[in-house]
């Protein structure tokens, strides 16, 4: 795969690893949060942590838009899927996301809900055209990366005058979440854990550009390096962060320049802003209510809004009180600090957002970190 394989070269990686080791000051810790599950995935998929010096520690951020979806929104979708007229179209990732009391869309499907997995928003439109006597609802979810395809099909449904297609909008925005983490009392006041810098999203940034992260550098004094998802991209980004820390800089730098620009994809941004607008607040699993962090359909597109069409009531389900996701997402605690980890909460039966997707911090620790702990125990 061109533009992928070159960035997975082991030899170059070894050199980069040495460069990081030599440039990182062994007298201080470097705590970098990778905001994005894509980076978390690359870390575990390629075993990057093994290649970093001990004092360079990666903190797994809110991960992915799927796992931060709160149980209440899943419950709302399940209620929708229980309506006999509704066909609920979802991305495959959503199947196992837990609602309240062990519910999930997978189980709702087993119990008779007409829930269909789609690969693309275009598939949902096709299903609506083929089932004119039914109500087809697309469960839209995703960061800024996944939002433009939703906007595109809402416009398409309008053009095709499809009366049976609506969108249950759950799109979320990354910069407000980053801000929330930085403003968290645990970090700013209690100060138990510091984040020394951010590895910034790759594909989100393709759409929104690097500019939205400048607040982070400016207001919170944290360096940000936008990084591609290939392992060499990440190692370069880590080296760039080490250098900024060493040089007491806090700028937004762009490692992923082959795909990301400062302004992002203008056409995609316009498509989104034509049709969607921020909600006053949106709930994130683990983070709670975050201001201006979610999107909804604009008033002029209300007829495509499933929440309006079906008079859906907002449901709120309290996270399991023992779940430490909030602390973990903010880098304050580690998965093993959670009493539920590995006993009640496992990939097949996730309790919190960090276990839901394989990119979540707890899931990553389950598949990867347990092994590291184990290696370390064996070594000691």
């Amino acid at each position: 795969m061109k533009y992928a394989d070159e960035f997975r070269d082991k030899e170059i990686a070894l050199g980069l690893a040495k460069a990081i080791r030599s440039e990182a000051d062994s007298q201080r810790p470097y705590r970098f949060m990778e905001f994005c599950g894509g980076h978390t995935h690359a870390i575990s998929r390629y075993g990057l942590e093994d290649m970093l010096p001990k004092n360079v520690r990666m903190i797994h951020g809110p991960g992915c838009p799927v796992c931060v979806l709160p149980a209440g929104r899943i419950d709302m979708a399940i209620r929708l899927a229980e309506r006999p007229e509704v066909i609920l179209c979802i991305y495959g990732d959503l199947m196992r996301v837990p609602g309240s009391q062990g519910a999930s869309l997978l189980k709702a499907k087993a119990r008779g809900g007409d829930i269909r997995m789609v690969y693309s928003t275009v598939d949902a439109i096709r299903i609506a055209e083929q089932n004119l006597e039914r109500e087809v609802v697309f469960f839209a979810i995703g960061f800024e990366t996944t939002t433009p395809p939703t906007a595109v099909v809402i416009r398409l449904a309008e053009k095709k005058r499809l009366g049976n297609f609506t969108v249950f909008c759950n799109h979320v925005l990354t910069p407000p979440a980053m801000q929330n983490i930085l403003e968290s009392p645990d970090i700013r006041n209690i100060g138990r854990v510091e984040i020394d810098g951010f590895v910034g999203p790759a594909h989100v940034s393709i759409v929104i550009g690097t500019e939205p992260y400048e607040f982070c550098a400016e207001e919170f004094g944290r360096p940000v390096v936008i990084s591609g998802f290939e392992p060499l991209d990440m190692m370069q980004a880590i080296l760039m962060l080490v250098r900024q820390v060493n040089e007491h800089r806090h700028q937004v730098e762009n490692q992923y320049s082959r795909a990301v620009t400062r302004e992002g994809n203008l056409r995609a941004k316009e498509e989104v802003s034509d049709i969607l607008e921020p909600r006053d607040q949106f709930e994130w699993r683990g983070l709670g209510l975050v201001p201006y962090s979610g999107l909804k359909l604009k008033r002029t597109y209300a007829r495509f809004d499933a929440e309006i069409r079906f008079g859906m009531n907002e449901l709120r389900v309290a996270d399991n009180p023992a779940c430490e996701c909030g602390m973990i997402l903010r880098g304050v605690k580690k998965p093993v600090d959670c009493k539920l980890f590995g006993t009640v909460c496992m990939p097949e039966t996730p309790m919190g957002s960090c276990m839901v997707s394989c990119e979540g911090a707890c899931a990553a620790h389950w598949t990867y970190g347990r092994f590291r702990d184990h290696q370390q125990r064996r070594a000691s």
Partner: protein
Amino acid sequence: MCLAIPAEVTRLLPDDTAVVSIDGVSKEISVALIENLAVGDYVIIHVGYALTKIDPEEARRTLELLRELSTEGQGVVQ
């Protein structure tokens, strides 16, 4: 993680669609979000949409830099 991969555009089709190819796998995608696309361009695709064109010059430059950084690292005596 916004799963997305680089793919080569092999055919432009009507209605903002195109065929892309990844190592012998080809798939029809939407290119509604991209301007000025040509066959031979590489794009990043996500949920069946091209999100951006890859800038080959920037890619070349990044790789060159990676090699340099790596060589610097290799030169380091630990």
